[in-house]
């Protein structure tokens, strides 16, 4: 799958679910892309590097979200401190 196509799928896929949740497991993203984990990982890593997606971590589990999406960013002063 081409990167641009993958990006579009992910952005649309996650925006659709935005109302219900803002953090997704890696497997959810691989499913949206309909790719094997290794291929999906390459594409998703690129989206992280390009700032389309961002990581969220509880310490034990990692999740992905659209950059800036979800409650935590605003509620926990992330945006403010990122710009400092």
């Amino acid at each position: 799958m081409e990167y641009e196509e993958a990006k579009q799928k992910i952005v649309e896929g996650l925006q659709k679910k935005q109302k219900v949740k803002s953090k997704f497991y890696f497997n959810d993203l691989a499913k949206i892309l309909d790719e094997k984990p290794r291929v999906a990982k390459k594409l998703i890593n690129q989206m992280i590097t390009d700032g389309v997606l961002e990581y969220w971590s509880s310490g034990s589990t990692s999740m992905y979200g659209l950059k800036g999406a979800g409650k935590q960013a605003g509620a926990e002063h992330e945006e403010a401190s990122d710009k400092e």
Partner: protein
Amino acid sequence: MKHETPLLDQLETGPWPSFVSDLKQEAEKRAKNEEGTEFQIPVDVVDDLIGVLELSYKHGCTHWKHGGIVGVFGYGGGVIGRYCDQPEMFPGVAHFHTLRVNQPAGHFYTTKYLRELCDLWDFRGSGVTNMHGSTGDIIFIGTTTKQLEEIFYEMTHKLDQDLGGSGSNLRTPSDCIGQARCEFACYDTQDLCYELTQEYQDELHRPAFPYKFKFKFDGCPNCCVASIARADLSFIGTWRDDIKIDQEVVQAYMGGEIAPNGGAHKDRDWGPFDIQKEVIDRCPTKCMWMDGKELKIDNKECTRCMHCINVMPRALRIGNDRGVTILAGAKAPILDGAQMGSLLVPFMKVEPPYDEIKEKVIEPIWDWWMEEGKNRERLGELMKRQGFQKLLEVTGFDPDPRMIQEPRSNPYVFWKEEEVPGGWSRDINEFRKQHQR
């Protein structure tokens, strides 16, 4: 102190060294700042840490929020976002992120290196560390978002030091001191640990697993890093040939010339060393006996439990044909209960560049787990859900009696249609020739 802490103060009254005293000492050190450090995060961070902890004791619940979106550029692990839910009361710990620092193999440090790490952490963090976290990493406890990239830059550019793993990553591999100091080590734990850490950098830093994944390396079955209980893949040193016996030294132990267990239990009155009671009767497989003055071992029955070698290390030594036993699926309880590792590879030689370990064990297991594992499902749980036989199938190892604890306890081995001549279908006419209706 900035906050009153009657509940924490009580913790200091016990007989043990107290982390509360340590924290107070650090808070005081920062307040005095005799070294003239230009603190990059609030000076009273440790005071506020003590304060919020006191409040947690008072309320009987935590005041830390769960997780966060912090990290360093390109890494999905190594930083754990922590935010206090009472930032007005405790501004010093409003942001209090944890960093995991990849510990050197076997925890070998120079004091110079430790000092550099601590100086960096005093300057850009709280100064509070955990040496070491349960995964093995050096844990830096508490800094602000702004400092993360700065610390990462200093560590990688000046101290030659990387962050460790957290989240759904390969976690920082950890090993025992191994051949550097220990004569029981059956392979070079430090080399294998280092090599796999380098090889799997992408897995360590960019989370794409269903959940955490741990490698741990023990040089022998004494299991100093407890790999068998904690690692998704445990690498435990072992040998295939015979335990080496020096009969003269056995006699010296029996005659009391050498203290058993390296003298570890000599402070009580256990009486003189009794080889029958303390070694032979304690052998779990009952494969040792005295033949006159000679100690005998039936090596094919020995499970390499290490007991006799630990008691008489100068008389008994590990064999010469050494390698590793690999177990899979140990974990602490989260979804399912706790599990010990299950034996997957009874014996494998351990030789650089370790291609056999990588290509026959690690990578096929990851491919399987990444595809089939559910969110937050550890390898051990997938093994339970799909069966050990599936693990054998994806790795290509043959079933072996050593994988079974005792008859009828682990139902790992089932016949498949292609393994049975004629498969599951039969010719009914052929069948009728021998069987009435």
